[in-house]
């Protein structure tokens, strides 16, 4: 990616392009990855409420997995899941 020069940037680091944080792939930071056991999952969506990075994929009110492009691997979903359906496994395994 070519980085912009000072003269090309909005002053004061103001972001004028609403929602562009999507373009910032925080998934690169992950050292552990969440893995779902759908047999245990009761689709309560607690993980979706807690995920700080909007990385829980929900379809028709069902938990469908993780948006790994942005999941930082923080493990909050795993801790919050009431039925222990999410395990954190080291990346690279």
């Amino acid at each position, binding site marked *: 990616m070519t980085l*912009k020069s000072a003269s090309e940037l909005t002053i004061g*680091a103001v972001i004028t392009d609403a929602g562009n944080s999507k373009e910032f792939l925080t998934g690169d930071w992950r050292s552990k990855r969440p893995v779902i056991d759908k047999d245990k999952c009761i689709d309560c969506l607690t993980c979706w409420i807690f995920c700080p990075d909007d990385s829980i994929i929900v379809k028709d009110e069902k938990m469908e997995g993780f948006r790994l492009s942005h999941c930082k691997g923080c493990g909050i979903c795993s801790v919050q899941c009431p039925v222990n359906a999410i395990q954190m496994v080291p990346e690279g395994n």
Partner: protein
Amino acid sequence: MKMATNGDAAIAYSWKQINPAVVPAYPITPQTIIVERFSDYVHDGEVDTEYVTTESEHSAMTVAIAASAAGVRVATATASAGMALMWEMLGVCSGMRCPVVMAVANRTLSGPINIHCDHSDSMGARDTGWIQIYAENVQEAYDNSIIAFRIAEDMRVRLPIMSCLDGFILTHAYEDLEVLEDQQVKDFVGEHQQLNPLLDLSNPVTHGPLDLQDYFFEHKYQVIDAINGSLSVIKEVLDEFEALSGRKHFIAEPYMCDDADFVAIAIGSTAGTMKAVVDELRVDGKKVGLIKLKVFRPFPSQIIADMVKGKQGVAVLDRAISLGSTGPLFLEVNNALLSIEDSPSVCNYVYGIGGRDAPPSQLKQIYLDMMDGKSLPINYLGVRK
């Protein structure tokens, strides 16, 4: 219109004429009269400013930044420990390019505790990306207060500005003041122009995002560029103000400098005393002059270098000391002189710390010592060692 008033009330009066949208305020001596008097104007309905009484100066500056980012004109005031408490937010304000106008009633920094004038507060904040202008008298404090809004909010600048006046010496002393008509002031400062305002709901923006290794330096470079470039904008605004008021303002004012062999450089009210001292010495045929510096940030190096070129000696008067080094103005002047061949000999006079009086007799001695070659590299005027 003429009135007799003190420096703080003059600042409050200028704000009344300007009617800023938001004034976040926390009182501190010797600034208190500014925010007290302005709160009277708010109470009496003479302005429609949103007056926010905050629980600390840190919060006052935070509100100022937020209101400015929201897209409106903001003024506030502080001094000494109040500015120290704002410290964290000063850099945020300039970094976020909020053109906040802040009156600073210069007061020393404790301890031991002391409420009187020196420039330790604003000089300590000289690296925070704020433009700084200083006043010699109540009239200049009033004029600067109006000028400040134009400079800060100029689209080529968009930086916060400190409009400084000497605590007590100017803030509390009554002097003659010639004020402009309200409409003249309103026309001069103009409508506040927004830049990416937070409250423009149809164009959503984010202010103050995380800015790391890949872009922070570029955003700081923008500030460097803007503050350096502001000098020409300041010149324009000063000239325009002269056309309006008939009062001439200088970035650096030369007083009897043309044929002077020895000049002093001073900031603030002492420059007024020094003019009287120069007059007195001129009667005795001494070729002395003074440079009164209004604009300290950005530092007008070239202007100073041109003014002192060819002089025999330069005494730099600092009402602050960078402890462990010299006065801050002395450092700047030396830096400016690097560009001159055969630069004059320069000495530093640190004076007036903690409000210590600097009477004409002592100030006169600066010139006499300089002419006799008796000045030390750094002199502490009137201190009992």
